[in-house]
Each structure stands twice: as structure tokens, then as C-alpha cells.
């Protein structure tokens, strides 16, 4: 028990002292170690006591109460009772004082932990979070040093700087393995308390190690150490466990934030790629005598693996290319970029679509094999003088030819898609494309569009549709096809990329 300050002592004993004075006593004093510290009446010279009694804490006497000017007999017992009472009161006062101090310290620690959480929430950098954690751990437990051990390989350690002491050299990974295996924290104020396989690091007198759980598993350990006489209390262990829990959550939320950022970055890249693709594909179609042209492209996702390309060669012939890469999304789009460049350059150079596609196959066979992809490809050269179109079709459909009069028909492939067989893969056929004749080339996203009950749009429906709108312009035709496909799909999501080019012969 510690005695309170003189003023408090006077206040606590005052009722008892006054009672003695009222009963006729001349003076009352409280003596500590032989000297009076408080006297009643105030300022009176203490005279020789007639009675004295011990004020004790346990077996120890901490003070004495002296009363002078009383009749001894009968008063002695009373004084002793009073002394006991004073003892109790002073004991309680002492406890209260200690509790208040501890509470204040706990409040400080709580504030520090909140600060830790708040500060770390704004950071995504793991290293900064971990450094903050070790610093806080060291400060709050009043340790000499603090560290975090990780279970990756090689095992990382983050430490809180401390003069003269390098925990990274002293603390072994065995401590991490131990708390991972036992699932519990470790507190040791001497080497005897440590399990056999663990050794107190040099110069360290006390150690606490707690597990840090990340995504359900103890992936790291947080520890603090002291190098002097004072050991760690159970309270410090609890506090460190709490900090360890916090650290685990902070790391988990940093991981989640990083993943979200990565997703956003990817999404943004996709959007940029889609913008590039839209620009390349939506370029204005050339005009050519005797022909109406319309082109449409609808990728299934942000970007797709279908292609159409229309340009005029130096000799005046119009080249139309429609192609479909196996697969969807980014990989297909990248292959398609490669295809567009290669197809454009062979078509500019080669005399006919068959020569062009055979050359294209030769050029791209190796790469497409390496990528395990192939490309169904349609290419046509329209001669505006002859009003004919030469067609080479490597595995592509649907290709519909609808003459000005008569039924529509499918134009078959001449050979397999580009990238399947080495060597020459196609020949060519010729069609007239006079006034009213229609050539429509789509990709299988159109013919394979599904109704909610699973039926496919198919080729017959497509041919009937084209026959039905044969008097419309190329643009109206193209729009009509998509309107009908969408109506057929009846709200079902578009599963595959859709591209369409319509060529319609017109009178001069």
C-alpha cells in the first residue's frame, strides 16, 4: 500500500480525529517513520502520546496514529479499531489510484490501436503497413525491439529499429514455426519458460511472439522483446495478440485493394483496346461504281475476334475480307490485328483472292499453329468494269448470294480455314454482281444466334430473310438482318461476335 499525499491523508482521517478531539483528547497525529505528518488540531505542537496504534498493510506497519490527553483505559480498544478502519480506507485508496493509472494507460493503448487502423486504411503498400505495425507494437508494449517474421521463402523479417539491437540477426524462424504449429502466442520472461527447441536470442531477456492470421492461416508472427530486468505482463501479451489480429486484417484488406486495382487496370486496358478496334473497323467504306456497300460489327464482349476489311486496290478492284478467329476476347482480338495487317498487304499485292489467301496461309501458318488458332477467311475481289466478283473462301460461313431474281443460296468454302493445313488451301469461284444482285457475308455469330429455347437462327432463315428484303438498299439489308437476329434471340445475351458485309449491285 502506498500512502496518499498529506492532504488526502488529512481528509480521510479527519472524521476519526475530530471524534477524538470531541471526546476530550488534546491532540491526534499521524506519524510515518517516527515523524508526525498530519496533526489535529491543525498546526498544534504534538505532545507525548498517551495512546498509539499501528496502521498496517498486511503485516507491515505503514504509519501510526497517536492520541494525547486521554484516559488510557477504555480508549485503547477504540483507537485500535480506528486504526484498522484507517488501514482499510488507505488500502482502498491505494488500489483506486493504481486502477486509475492502469485505465489511463489502457485508454492510451486503445487510441494507439485505432490510430494504427485508421492510418493503415489509407495505405495499400504492404511494407508501410508492416513497418507501422512493428513500431506501434514496440511502443505500446514498451519493448526494446519488435519484429514480424514471414513464412515465404526466403523468410522475410520486418523490424522496428532499436539502437544496438538487430532482431533480424537474433530472432530465428523457429519462433514463427512454433506459433504456427501451436496456434497460440508465446510469452517467455526467461529461457526456462521457452520450449526446448527454442532459444532466447542473445541479449534478450523477455519475448512475446503472437501469430498473424492472413486469409485463415497463420502466415506470419509478430514479436516484441526486452533486454533488461522487467518481464512482459499478461496484459502486454493480450495487447500484442490484438495488434497481431489487426495486422492480419490490414494485410487482408491491402490484398483485396490491390486485386481491385488490378481488375480496374485490366478493365481500362480492355476499354482502350475496344476503342482502338472500333476505330479500325468503323472506318468509312470506300465507294465504287456499280455497288452499294454496308458493313456492321458487334463484338460479344468489349473486343472480339471477327474482322471485316474493305479497301480499293491500285487497279481499281474492291477487296472485301471477312474473317473469324477461333476464341473470343483479347486473345482473339490480338490475332485478328495480325490477320488484318497481313490480309490487307497480300490483297494489295496478289492478283486474285485465291493467290492472296494461299499466300496468307503460308505467311501465318507457323504462328497460328503456335497459338493453336485458325481463322475462317472469306476474301473477294470485285471488278467494277466487269461487274463480277472473284471469291476465295477458306472455311468461312455464312456467305449468301442472292441474285436479282431467283432464290438465295449459300456459297461453300473452297478449302479449310487459314492455319489448319500447310500449303495452298483454296481456289476461287466467280459470281456476277449486277444490278439487284446481293452478296452478304456474315460470321457464325449470326447463323448460330440462339433463341431462348435453344434453336439456332441458321442458314435457311438467313436466306429467306435476305430474299424478303432484296429490294432494300445494302444498308437497310444489313440493319434488317441484325433486327431479325435480335428479335429471334429475344433478349438472350449475344454469345459470339457478329460481323456482316453486304454488297449490292446497283444500276449506274
Amino acid at each position, binding site marked *: 500500500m502506498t500512502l496518499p499525499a498529506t492532504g488526502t491523508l488529512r481528509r480521510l482521517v479527519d472524521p476519526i480525529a475530530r471524534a477524538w478531539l470531541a471526546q476530550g483528547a488534546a491532540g491526534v497525529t499521524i506519524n510515518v517513520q517516527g515523524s508526525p505528518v498530519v496533526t489535529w488540531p491543525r498546526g498544534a505542537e504534538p505532545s507525548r502520546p498517551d495512546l498509539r496504534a499501528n496502521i498496517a498493510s498486511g503485516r507491515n506497519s505503514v504509519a501510526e496514529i497517536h492520541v494525547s490527553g486521554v484516559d488510557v483505559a477504555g480508549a485503547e480498544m477504540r483507537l485500535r479499531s480506528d486504526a484498522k478502519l484507517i488501514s482499510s480506507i488507505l488500502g482502498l485508496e491505494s488500489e483506486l489510484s493504481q486502477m486509475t493509472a492502469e485505465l489511463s494507460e489502457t485508454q492510451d493503448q486503445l487510441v494507439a490501436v485505432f490510430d494504427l487502423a485508421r492510418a493503415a486504411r489509407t495505405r495499400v503498400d504492404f511494407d508501410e503497413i508492416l513497418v507501422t505495425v512493428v513500431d506501434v507494437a514496440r511502443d505500446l508494449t514498451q519493448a526494446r525491439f519488435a519484429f514480424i517474421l514471414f513464412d515465404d521463402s526466403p523468410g522475410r523479417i520486418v523490424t522496428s529499429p532499436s539502437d544496438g539491437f538487430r532482431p533480424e540477426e537474433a530472432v530465428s524462424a523457429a519462433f514463427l514455426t512454433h506459433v504456427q504449429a501451436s496456434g497460440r502466442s508465446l510469452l517467455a520472461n526467461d529461457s526456462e519458460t521457452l520450449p526446448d527447441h527454442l532459444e532466447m536470442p542473445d541479449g534478450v531477456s523477455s519475448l512475446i511472439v503472437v501469430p498473424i492470421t492472413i486469409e485463415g492461416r497463420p502466415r506470419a508472427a509478430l514479436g516484441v522483446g526486452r533486454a533488461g530486468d522487467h518481464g512482459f505482463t499478461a496484459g502486454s501479451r493480450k495487447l500484442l495478440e490484438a495488434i497481431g489480429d489487426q495486422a492480419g486484417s490490414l494485410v487482408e484488406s491491402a490484398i483485396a485493394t490491390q486485386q481491385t486495382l488490378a481488375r480496374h487496370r485490366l478493365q481500362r486496358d480492355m476499354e482502350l483496346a475496344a476503342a482502338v478496334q472500333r476505330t479500325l473497323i468503323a472506318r468509312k467504306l470506300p465507294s465504287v461504281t456499280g455497288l452499294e456497300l454496308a458493313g456492321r460489327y458487334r463484338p460479344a464482349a468489349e473486343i472480339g475476334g471477327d474482322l471485316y476489311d474493305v479497301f480499293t486496290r491500285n487497279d481499281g478492284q474492291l477487296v472485301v475480307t471477312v474473317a473469324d478467329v477461333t*476464341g473470343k476476347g483479347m486473345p482473339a482480338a490480338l490475332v485478328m490485328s495480325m490477320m488484318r495487317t497481313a490480309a490487307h498487304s497480300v490483297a494489295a499485292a496478289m492478283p486474285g483472292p485465291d493467290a492472296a489467301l494461299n499466300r496468307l496461309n503460308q505467311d501465318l501458318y507457323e504462328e497460328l499453329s503456335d497459338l493453336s488458332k485458325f481463322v475462317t477467311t472469306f476474301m473477294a475481289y470485285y471488278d467494277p468494269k466487269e461487274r463480277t466478283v472473284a471469291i476465295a473462301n477458306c472455311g468461312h460461313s455464312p456467305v449468301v448470294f442472292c441474285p436479282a431474281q431467283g432464290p438465295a443460296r449459300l456459297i461453300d468454302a473452297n478449302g*479449310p*480455314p487459314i492455319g489448319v493445313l500447310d500449303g495452298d488451301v483454296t481456289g476461287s469461284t466467280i459470281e456476277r454482281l449486277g444490278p439487284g444482285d446481293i452478296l452478304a457475308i456474315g460470321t*457464325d455469330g449470326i447463323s448460330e444466334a440462339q433463341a431462348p429455347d435453344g434453336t439456332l437462327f441458321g442458314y435457311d432463315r438467313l436466306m429467306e430473310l435476305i430474299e424478303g428484303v432484296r429490294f432494300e438498299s445494302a444498308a437497310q439489308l444489313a440493319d434488317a438482318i441484325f433486327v431479325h437476329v435480335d428479335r429471334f434471340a429475344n433478349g438472350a445475351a449475344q454469345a459470339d461476335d457478329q460481323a456482316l458485309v453486304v454488297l449490292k449491285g446497283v444500276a449506274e
Partner: protein
Amino acid sequence: MNLTTNIHNDVTVLTLDGRFDAHEAPAVVSALNGSLQTASVVVNLSGVNFIDSTALSTLVQGMKHCRERSGDLVLSNLQQPVRVIFELTKLDRAFVIYGSQEDALAAIAK
């Protein structure tokens, strides 16, 4: 999709059953790449009612690998909807296709 592998006289017979699409392709890629112990493969498609372009590219890839190793990958027992796809794309000119597994094995044996 179900996938079973058997070996008959030094020829792997890969039997597929179900919808063969991009989702199922990786399993077929493993069967045709890593674990192939023979130079030739017969892919029995009797149970396959749907095939998409990614699945086709898997077969094309397998076929190229076998031919590089002086063997071949041939197809058998194509259902009608699958046969149509092969005809449209003219992949029926790229692959050797048999009506039955027995015919395929007999032809390879020669």
C-alpha cells in the same frame, strides 16, 4: 463432357461424349499433348452433339502434333450436326474421317 482413353495395338483411342466446347477443350488438349504415348490417335466423336471453333482448333492442333511425329489424328463416328460443321468449314478436307472406330483402326493398321 466425358473423356476416355484406351490403347489398341499402339493407337490411342480417345472417346468423347457430350458437348465439346471451349470449356471442355483444355482437358482434350492435355490428353492429346502431354500424355500421348502413341504416334496416332483415333478420336471417336460418337457421343458429341455439339462442337465449337475452340474445340475444332484443339483437334487441329492434335492433328498437327501427330503428323509431326509421323503419325496422324483421325476422326470417327461423327454425328450429323458435327459433320455439317466440318463440311461448312471444309475441315473435312483437312482431317481423315471414318464412319466407325473399327474402320479407323483397321486403316491405321495397314
